[in-house]
């Protein structure tokens, strides 16, 4: 009985939204704002970064965000709503050219567009800050629980947080890193919770979420770079020896340094794989959802409203499925990033094997 009511409400909301969307599109057309549907542009707009943050049910209004640029003549700061509608402010505008599409550029006197150093708080930067604050709030609330309640077991959300911390630290980091675990755990746990929060925020379609953070290569680049730096700087003598003088037949390492080449390449491919894995997984999830939703509009344009309604039922069902799958993927990818970083660090902390000592011990 209860489930029937919920289904009825959901169906009603979907129908109402469809009707409202159809009505507002018709209004748009009537006012002469008709624009051709461009699926590719829409998808890349949603996947990419933006100056300003969209609000639901409105195509023009955006939450303004600060733009900070270092142009030819020094630092400029202003809010994004001064340029998001195509205006030029203080010599800056959002480019429509092929080269700098959608980015802030400085218009020079001869009309050429020059890209300044862009430190703007874009939608993604704002999303990162929100995610970071959320992580601080979550983790600090858990810490406060321990500080206040001592040995009592946390309940509810904090209990779940503790479960996740225990899963990541107790079942992954500690068994792999052993006695080094406390030293590297803060980085790995921070990375895990930050990635997880960013992943999940990306799945929420309206304001505090909706930024495709971990599906952006810049974000995953930083994360992978940090793992690379930690791995490289905590490498032991044995780690470097295995790279530059591995225990292989002499012909493989001298005079042609074949193994060395492979090992050095390996140093870089490992974090590169980390970067691409997280990026590709999250971006593809978002892309599939976007395509499924766009199918409704494409079919409506092609075959009319009737087919569009039919498609929407199919699309909404699949979108729901994809989003739920993405929740799972969010956890899995955050965990995979963490466990692989842990393994890379543990490989850098390798100790000499004592090949010669072992047979003597047996005798």
């Amino acid at each position, binding site marked *: 009985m209860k489930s029937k009511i919920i289904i009825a409400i959901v169906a009603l909301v979907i129908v109402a939204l469809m009707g409202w969307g159809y009505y507002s599109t018709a209004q748009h057309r009537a006012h002469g704002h008709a624009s051709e549907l461009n699926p590719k542009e829409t998808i890349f707009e949603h996947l990419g*970064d933006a100056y300003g943050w969209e609000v639901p049910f409105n195509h023009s209004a955006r939450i303004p965000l600060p733009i900070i640029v270092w142009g030819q003549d020094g630092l400029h700061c202003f809010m994004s709503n001064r340029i998001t509608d195509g205006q030029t402010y203080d010599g800056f505008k959002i480019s429509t050219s092929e080269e700098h599409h959608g980015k802030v550029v400085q218009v020079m006197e001869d009309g050429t567009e020059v890209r300044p150093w*862009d*430190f703007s708080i874009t939608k993604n*930067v704002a999303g990162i800050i929100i995610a970071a604050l959320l992580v601080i709030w979550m*983790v*600090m609330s*858990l810490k406060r629980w321990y500080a206040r309640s001592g040995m009592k077991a946390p309940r509810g959300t904090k209990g779940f947080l503790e479960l996740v911390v225990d899963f990541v630290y107790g079942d992954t980091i500690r068994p792999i890193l052993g006695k080094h675990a406390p030293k590297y755990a*803060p980085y790995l746990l*921070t990375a895990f919770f930050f990635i997880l929060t960013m992943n999940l925020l990306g799945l929420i379609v309206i304001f505090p979420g909706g930024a495709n953070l971990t599906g952006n290569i810049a974000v995953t680049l930083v994360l992978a770079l940090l793992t690379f730096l930690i791995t490289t700087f905590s490498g032991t003598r044995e780690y470097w020896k295995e790279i530059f003088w591995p225990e292989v037949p002499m012909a493989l390492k001298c005079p042609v340094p074949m193994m060395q080449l492979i090992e050095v390449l390996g140093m870089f491919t490992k974090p590169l794989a980390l970067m691409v894995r997280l990026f590709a997984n999250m*971006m593809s999830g978002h892309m599939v959802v976007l395509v499924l939703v766009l199918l409704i509009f494409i079919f409506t344009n092609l075959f009319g409203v009737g087919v569009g309604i039919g498609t929407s039922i199919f699309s909404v069902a699949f979108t729901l499925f994809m989003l739920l799958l993405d929740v799972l993927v969010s956890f899995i990818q955050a965990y995979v990033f963490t466990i692989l970083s842990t393994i890379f660090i543990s490989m850098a902390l390798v100790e000499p094997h004592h090949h010669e000592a072992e047979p003597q011990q047996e005798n």
Partner: protein
Amino acid sequence: MELFTPEFGLVFWMFVAFLCLYFILAKWAWPFIIKSMEERADMIDKGVAYAQEAKMHLDNAKTEADKLIAEARNKQNEMLRDAERMRNQLIDDAKGEAAVEAKKVTEAAQISLEQARKEAEKQLRTEVGDLALQIAEKVIRKNIASDDAQRKLVDQYLSEIEAKN
């Protein structure tokens, strides 16, 4: 290809944000959380071990108590049996003694009775003899000259009667 070229500003801010997050959490949160969780895990482990030990002790105590109770019951049974045996023996002894005593009393009574009878018989004999003599004297006073010869005769007769009896 725009998707695959990292934006400088975003890299910069991500770096700053991550480092801030890292330093805040690494300084104030993670070590404390990990320490607390491990302490609690230790405490729980110890608690479980303690409970197991306590249960073991309890089980042991139970078996020991059962053993004690069984032993006590055996002892009790044994004591009851001893008491029974002793009582029976006492009764038997008492019976035996009483019998001996009774026998003695009876024998003594028989002996005294015999004696009394013999004496009575003797007395009776003398008295009967006297009586018979007196009667005979009275009867045959005149016929019999000597007393002594007649007395002998009476005695003789009496002995004959007695022998007949």
